[in-house]
């Protein structure tokens, strides 16, 4: 099976501080993968390495068969990777509409297609319709998270990177967001790489899990297998 995204022996460092050491992972086209691990294990850094965002990387990163390591962040986005960053990256002073339109920037879409895509986003996240003309910085955390996901989807990415979409949100909103992620994966055939602290939630969503510890992949496999592992149960599921 060909992989949509493939990391081979990737090292990453902030200046002199090495964070990732020889990380290898792959995501199948249409697959959903979770990256788990404790704080500081290198989950966010892995996403940043994929998008070449402020980290020095070595090793091989392939997307849709093409080497993307060393490309500029904006070129990687153009290649078809949507990234919902840590902290959501909202354009706070701009309106919700402007945020979404910026998401469609690289698709260089016609007004017609933008309108269609907006309707689709309103279908996933009805609250965005109600907030359409509001300044994005005034949205609640959950609404901003939805906006961030919708913004990334407006670019019609083949792969969506999500950095802790559950962070700081009420459980009921998190449930909602995860349900929508499943729908997006099914309807748009968008592959998903999810970084999560909440292992239980991630296990329900994805079809493959990678476990990171101090910058290395220690184990990987389908969620059922990983969840059965005694140490994982203790460390991540609190059982």
């Amino acid at each position, binding site marked *: 099976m060909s992989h949509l995204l493939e990391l081979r022996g990737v090292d990453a460092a902030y200046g002199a501080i090495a964070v990732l050491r020889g990380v290898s992972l792959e995501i199948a086209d249409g697959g959903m993968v979770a990256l788990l691990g404790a704080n500081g294990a290198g989950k966010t850094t892995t996403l940043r390495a994929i998008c070449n965002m402020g980290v020095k990387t070595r090793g091989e990163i392939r997307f849709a068969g093409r080497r993307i390591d060393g490309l*500029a962040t*904006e070129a990687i*986005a153009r290649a078809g990777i949507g990234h919902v960053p840590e902290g959501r990256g909202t354009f*706070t002073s701009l309106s919700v509409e402007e945020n979404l339109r910026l998401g469609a920037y690289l698709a260089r879409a016609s007004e017609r297609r933008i309108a269609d895509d907006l309707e689709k986003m309103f279908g996933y996240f009805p609250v965005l319709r109600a907030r359409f003309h509001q300044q994005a*910085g005034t949205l609640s955390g959950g609404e901003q998270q939805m906006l961030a996901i919708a913004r990334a989807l407006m*670019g019609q990415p083949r792969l969506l990177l999500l950095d802790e979409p559950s962070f700081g949100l009420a459980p009921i909103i998190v449930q909602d967001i995860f349900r929508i992620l499943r729908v997006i994966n099914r309807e748009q055939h968008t592959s998903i790489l999810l970084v999560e602290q909440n292992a239980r939630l991630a296990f329900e969503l994805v079809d493959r899990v990678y476990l990171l510890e101090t910058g290395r992949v220690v184990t990987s496999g389908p969620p059922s297998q990983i969840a059965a592992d005694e140490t994982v149960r203790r460390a991540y599921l609190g059982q």
Partner: protein
Amino acid sequence: MTMQTLLHQLLSGFAMGAIYASVALALVMIFKATHQVNFAQGELAVCSTYVAASLITAGVPYWIAFALTVVISFVAGVVIERAVMRQFRHASVLTQVIVFVGFLILFNSLTGWVFGTMTRPFPSPFADNAWYGSRYLSPHEIGLIGVTLVVLAIVFVFFRYTRLGLTMRAAAENPASSRLVGIRVGWMLALGWGLASTLGAVAGVMAAPRLFLEPNMMSGVLLYGFAAALLGGIDNPWGAPIGGFIVGVLENVAGAYLVGSQLKLPLALFVIILVLVLRPSGLFGRTVVVRV
């Protein structure tokens, strides 16, 4: 002191304010995008004005020379950002300030060397006896107010209603997120530089008939421009022009009735200090409300 002279001083100040408005907006545009204060903005404008003067002397009709100057200044701004400022993007603030001061001295000397340091007149496209002149405002003052308002309107429409304008605002507000949606942030900053240097060029060309052309023509104007930008709110593009008009009127009226023409320039410094002490975000500087 009659009502009439007061009115004359007010309106005349408004005309000068139009120049400060353009310069202030140019400063704010670069500040918003890069958090750098372009101390060389005035010298660049003088350079542009000399280019216009040379074109006009060579026989190019005024408005064509004006358009060419605008285009040349735009390209020069883009090139300066791409070739030089870009190298100092991640340098310390002090380094950046030194680069800007270096630019100031460089361009000042360069214009003196290439075009000569003697003061010379500069033509106005608005004839002295034009019908729109009045007792209170000369045709040139009316014309320069008109040109400035048109330019401000174009800038407003560009940023508010065009895709590229939105993209530039996004790049200025959140470069990291902009890259993630595929925006080439570096080029947006360069475009911002181009626009700023265009605004400076318009200000220079419009100011020159009144101030007379010489390499230091804009040094005072730049100071008023700083005062205007701070008064309007250094991070508020809509506040900057308003600050410009206020400073222009204030300068003229205070110069006529309060401090005399010798102390007009210190007045700009006084405004700067006053704003920084009393209201550092300026009259219209707003704090973006953010929930996390």
